[in-house]
């Protein structure tokens, strides 16, 4: 792979957009993480009627009119609204909000786990209760998992390439990686990439049933010794990726460069933590090979640690093996204690956190982290730290064996 690097097209981040439990600007998001604020709380959106309130990372007070004015948002369900809002913010930051302002078509690669589980399940229940003749055609259109990407494209006139990547907690990182390869390969010039996910009562109910969530009243603490599980989250976060020369030619801001990414899979599907760790480790090593860099170049890591009993351990083991001696030296953190596990959106949140670290040299701490799980060979802290970060890494490990890694460098490297 290294031989390809000299001639290949370079991909840079030229804009960001997010709606999150911790705000809808990169600055507010970074400030909240720096201060150790939690975006979690009892969420009616995530709670099935009559059940105990589910603690989750909701996009509190999300008001579509803030982003969409008086345009009719009824055709968009919540996932689509979150995605379209984040896309609009990124396009505005890029100065490309108007279709006429674009010299190249803009496309979208969106990571999502569910699309809208609520839309799908409600459509089905209406068919069961009212009868199949009373389901709503619009709900069926939105029941496909690529509906948020399709609706966002319609909303913003994104006539460029359009795709959707699934993959649970890895979907957002996978989408950014896929978009990078599409631009490198000359299939696109400008792509929004990241992810979107909504909270739903169906998700709250079924993740609770699976015993994966932190107990009511307790906060998830990634890598904490007493962690009991994660919280669900939601939101949308997108970066605008462009080919470097094209971005320079239009005078775009350069927030960072995507220099490496990779994914891998654990065929035990999470049943064997060592096998899961191995998948994460292979993804990290392959991402470094893609970047032509090594662990010695690394300044900080934003892990996918969420408070999950099994996944946090496997991710730490995989990082320790792939970063070797750098693992204990390079400051690492996790943001899902504050945001929840927002699946498709999580990778976008992690990418935005990486960009903030590159610009500010500040790595957020892990809120509430007292004693880390013993024996983890990672440099973790509950306080923000100054980092000399020119190269930063994000990792994620899904419940079903998917692993992903993304490496960004500071834009002055561009």
């Amino acid at each position, binding site marked *: 792979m290294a031989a390809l690097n000299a001639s290949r097209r370079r991909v840079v981040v030229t804009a960001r957009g997010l709606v999150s439990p911790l705000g809808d600007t990169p600055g507010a998001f970074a400030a909240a993480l720096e201060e150790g604020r939690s975006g979690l709380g009892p969420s009616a959106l995530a709670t099935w009627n009559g059940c105990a309130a589910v603690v989750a990372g909701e996009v509190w007070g999300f008001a579509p009119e803030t982003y969409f004015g008086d345009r009719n948002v009824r055709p968009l369900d919540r996932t689509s609204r979150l995605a379209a809002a984040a896309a609009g913010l990124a396009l505005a930051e890029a100065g490309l909000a108007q279709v006429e302002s674009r010299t190249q078509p803009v496309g979208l690669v969106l990571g999502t786990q569910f699309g809208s589980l609520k839309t799908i399940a409600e459509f089905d229940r209406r068919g069961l209760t009212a009868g199949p003749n009373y389901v709503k*055609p619009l709900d069926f259109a939105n029941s*496909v998992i*690529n509906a948020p990407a399709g609706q966002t494209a319609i909303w913003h006139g994104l006539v460029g390439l359009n795709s959707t990547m699934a993959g649970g907690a890895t979907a957002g990182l996978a989408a950014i990686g896929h978009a990078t390869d599409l631009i490198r390969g000359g299939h696109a010039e400008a792509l929004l990439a990241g992810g979107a996910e909504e909270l739903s009562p169906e998700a709250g109910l079924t993740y609770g049933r699976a015993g994966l969530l932190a107990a009511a009243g307790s906060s998830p603490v990634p890598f904490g010794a007493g962690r009991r599980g994660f919280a669900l989250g939601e939101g949308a976060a997108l970066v605008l990726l462009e080919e470097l020369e094209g971005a320079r030619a239009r005078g775009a801001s350069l927030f960072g460069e995507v220099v490496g990414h990779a994914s891998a899979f654990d065929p035990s599907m999470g049943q064997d933590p060592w096998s899961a760790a191995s998948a994460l480790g292979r993804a990290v090593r392959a991402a470094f090979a893609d970047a032509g860099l090594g662990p010695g170049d690394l300044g900080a890591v934003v892990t996918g640690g969420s408070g999950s009993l099994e996944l946090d351990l496997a991710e730490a083991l995989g990082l320790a093996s792939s970063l070797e001696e750098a693992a204990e030296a390079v400051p690492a953190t996790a943001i899902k204690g504050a945001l929840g596990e927002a699946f498709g959106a999580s990778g976008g949140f992690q990418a935005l956190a990486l960009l903030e670290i590159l610009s500010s040299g500040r790595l957020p701490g892990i809120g509430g982290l007292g004693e880390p799980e013993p024996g983890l060979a990672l440099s973790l802290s509950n306080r923000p730290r100054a980092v000399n970060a020119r190269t930063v890494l994000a990792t994620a490990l899904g419940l079903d064996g998917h692993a992903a890694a993304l490496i960004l460098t500071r834009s002055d490297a561009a």
Partner: protein
Amino acid sequence: MSRRIVVTGIGMVTSVGIGRRAAWQALLAGRRGTSTVESFDTSRHPVHQGGEIKGFRPDDHLKRLVPAQIGRASQLGAAAARLALSDAGLDPEALDPARAGVAMGTTSGEPQEVERLDDALVAEDLAQAGHGFVRRYPCHLIAAHVAAEVGFAGVNAMIPTACAAGNYALAYAYDALVNDRAELMLAGGADCFSRITYTGFARLGAIAPDVCRPFDKNRQGMIPGEGAAVLVLEPLDRALARGVEPIAEVAGYGLSCDAHHMTAAHPEGEGAARAMERALRMAGLAPEDVSYVSAHGTGTPTNDRLESIAVKRVFGERSPRVPMSSIKSMLGHTMGAASAIEAAVCALAVAEDRVPPTIHFEEPDPECDVDCVPNEAREMPVAVAMNNAYAFGGNNASTVMIKWRP
């Protein structure tokens, strides 16, 4: 010079046959796979035909996974993967697992799991609702189960771009090989028959009451179906090194987005034409080089008319003479599996110089001025086959297979 990527194995699980040979022979013979729906009660629906695979026994195919523990789309996909590897003469145990990957497409993932959840919720049986759901429902489980079944530990991608997803997965796998992210990829699509999908298309008035007759003047709609196909892709040098004759070469792909309407295609076929043109440009081919087109051809009045307009944009005056058939006339619309099965058909068409027919064709439609290979398979030279797929969300994808030559 970019690496050349070839197809060396095909696995198909369809309503007309399971396995490459059985499915291909049935498609050439023009056998209909749609029939009266049995997997759920359609008595409250105005239509009753579906493309269910009634003789599928997952135990016949799966060696590692326990069928009862995974959803039906996963069963179909994993079975297709086993069949494809066997067709390629590959022992998965003999491959480097870290360099072997999977890319799968789907429309709905495992919708039967949502149906089970909803059955319990509607029955107000909250204690029973949702158990096991998160380990059975998320659509990425299809790609995960394919990989777990065959022990592949490399790249693993799930692309839920609805009814164009098989082509998207093929494109993803092609890039993974060209970029040396893997040395072998399984690429395909899987979808299972579902109450949700059937109810939705019925409500749209899109389902034909009897049979699917694409491009016919009297066509009345599509018929929801199910199925899976998986193609083994590998770099040409690797295939030749192990002494294998490729079935076909993947020459290019084109993806585009209408950004127009969630369920209706662009009225002038704009996005569909762009996908075809991009695929040809990437393949270094011109429209006149195309021997055969596997149509999206759902059999709805609108799709077939707009697809005819789109191919006219690309092929111009020649478009009525370009053979373009729709196997959805036989299988119904297998959703995310459709363009994977159709990609397999394109690979076999260039390998064997035969193309499957559009069955149930009786009366030409002046608005569909195409040669749909009516009713009888055709023996003809097929140097270049193009596979078109269009999806909800305005996702368009075309792929191009060419005859492999040294």
